[in-house]
């Protein structure tokens, strides 16, 4: 660092709380990269880059839209439905903490931004291997303004769900149900890949899948653990539960895999890690470690069922975002209504601890979130479709989107590659004719 800069502490800021939220922010940002690795392992080699790029693109597009208006729409005061434009263009986002927080406002802005980025990237799983890159960019730009901030406002920004008493710690509503049901709508509007259901379309690199899932789990400790915005009971509990729930989900998935086919699959394990992390996302700070382990077991069944059943349908929701995020998030949101324990969360009890009301609040969220995410996405994409093509031609799909949309291949050997522009113009050698054309 430069001797000239000041290292004075910031009034109202706790250095320990902030230290953790900074690490957490970087970790959540890293999740989007991990997701790229995870997703690109799940597709065929000829689409590996395009798939990864859909995650990288979210880092570009959504960061910008978040800074311009997204953050303000989510966290600006305002009605129960959506925030306002007070913080648009980062207006008034400085070092002074937000009322009731102990971290710089600007850090809070960044931390929340990484959530919106990740969620947008998650959606791409529904449309990989066929949606063109440009329409995708436009879609997530709109989506990150019209959908995520609204749903985030409901639970994080003092919107009607938070007011109503719905508990959602780290984003069961905007992140998980938001991405899952957006994915379903996107898959329906964009349509299935040409060979879907006729040919086997298999993951090209399962090691990437496990590495990517591992990076995601690592980052999720920041995602859930950082959502307490510091070192406090809520954050600590969510952090530890982020270790326990996915472990139990993994073990249960192993069991179901074994029962189903006498084989415990690696792709299944990668999926189970995600499902477990998603399941605990809304509930992390509200339920005891013991219940978190139970939740890990319970959340597995509906997700596993949907994952096995979905490919038998005509819905090519390619990477099963609905199952892994939508259903898992919904289950997590509902189970809070049963397992929440005031002894642990100092906020509310669930049905098992004698308070039935909470379950109602949770059910409301489990109802409105899917409806809004699905409906709004359906409208946006249908509108886009009427304007222009959102997917490539059959030929593009056959060739692979890496070549058609990015002019690259993931794995190049170099044979048959002739330099066009080079240091010494290749004039000295006769340029290869392109016969028959």
């Amino acid at each position, binding site marked *: 660092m430069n001797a000239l800069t000041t290292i004075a502490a910031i009034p109202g800021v706790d250095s320990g709380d902030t230290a953790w939220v900074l690490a957490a922010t970087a970790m959540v940002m890293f999740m989007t990269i991990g997701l790229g690795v995870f997703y690109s392992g799940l597709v065929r080699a000829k689409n590996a880059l395009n798939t990864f790029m859909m995650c990288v693109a979210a880092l570009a597009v959504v960061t910008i839209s978040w800074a311009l208006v997204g953050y303000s729409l989510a966290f600006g005061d305002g009605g129960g439905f959506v925030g306002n434009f007070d913080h648009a263009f980062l207006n008034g986002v400085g070092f002074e903490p937000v009322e009731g927080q102990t971290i710089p406002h600007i850090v809070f802005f960044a931390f929340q931004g990484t959530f919106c980025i990740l969620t947008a990237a998650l959606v791409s799983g529904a449309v990989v291997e066929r949606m063109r890159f440009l329409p995708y960019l436009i879609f997530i730009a709109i989506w990150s303004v019209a959908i995520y901030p609204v749903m985030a406002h409901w639970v994080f920004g003092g919107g009607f769900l938070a007011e109503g008493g719905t508990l959602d710690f780290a984003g069961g509503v905007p992140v998980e149900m938001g991405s899952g049901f957006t994915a379903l709508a996107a898959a329906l509007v964009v349509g299935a890949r040409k*060979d879907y259901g006729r040919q086997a379309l298999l993951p090209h690199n399962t090691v990437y899948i496990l590495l990517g899932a591992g990076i995601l789990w690592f980052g999720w400790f920041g995602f859930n653990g950082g959502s307490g915005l510091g070192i406090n009971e809520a954050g600590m509990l969510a952090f530890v539960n982020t270790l326990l729930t996915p472990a139990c989900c993994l073990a249960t998935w192993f069991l179901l895999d074994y029962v189903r086919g006498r084989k415990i699959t690696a792709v299944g394990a990668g999926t189970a890690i995600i499902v477990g992390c998603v399941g605990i996302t809304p509930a992390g700070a509200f339920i005891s470690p013991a219940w978190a382990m139970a939740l890990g077991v319970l959340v597995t069944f509906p997700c596993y069922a949907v994952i096995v059943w979905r490919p038998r349908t005509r819905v090519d929701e390619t990477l099963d975002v609905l199952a892994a995020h939508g259903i898992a998030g919904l289950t997590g949101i509902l189970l809070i209504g049963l397992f929440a324990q005031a002894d642990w969360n100092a906020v509310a009890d669930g049905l098992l601890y004698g308070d039935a009301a909470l379950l109602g609040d949770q059910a409301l969220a489990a109802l409105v979130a899917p409806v809004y995410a699905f409906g709004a996405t359906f409208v946006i994409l249908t509108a886009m479709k009427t304007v222009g093509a959102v997917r490539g031609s059959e030929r593009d799909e*056959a060739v692979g989107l890496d*070549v058609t949309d990015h002019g690259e*291949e993931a794995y*190049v050997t170099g044979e048959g590659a*002739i330099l066009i522009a080079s240091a010494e113009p290749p004039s000295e050698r006769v340029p290869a004719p*392109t016969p028959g054309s």
Partner: protein
Amino acid sequence: MKLVIGIVRPEKANEVLEALYRAEVRGLSISRVQGHGGELERVETYRGTTVRMGLSEKVRFEIAVSDEFVDRTVDALREGGRTGEVGDGKIMVLPLEHVVRIRTGETDHGAVTPVGP
């Protein structure tokens, strides 16, 4: 006996396989190749380097058959591999003097599955 070599599009490989199964051609080997023919070449860019890619991915079938099977094998390759667009590929038929089945040592007709009459 003949050795039939067929070069087809990767996305057609499975259809060719099924056509061959239907034609009761049971033994075959395939491998990935890259081919150049009449296809349009792709231009790819890696940072400042722009290249013309003269080769496209293909799948190569290699099938040893007894004479009576040659035609149906060639037909299966044609049906299964055809799209009508430039780049569908080629079929080659070569004379084959001997075939040995490593497991049993059976030779020639006995070795080509399924055994000719």
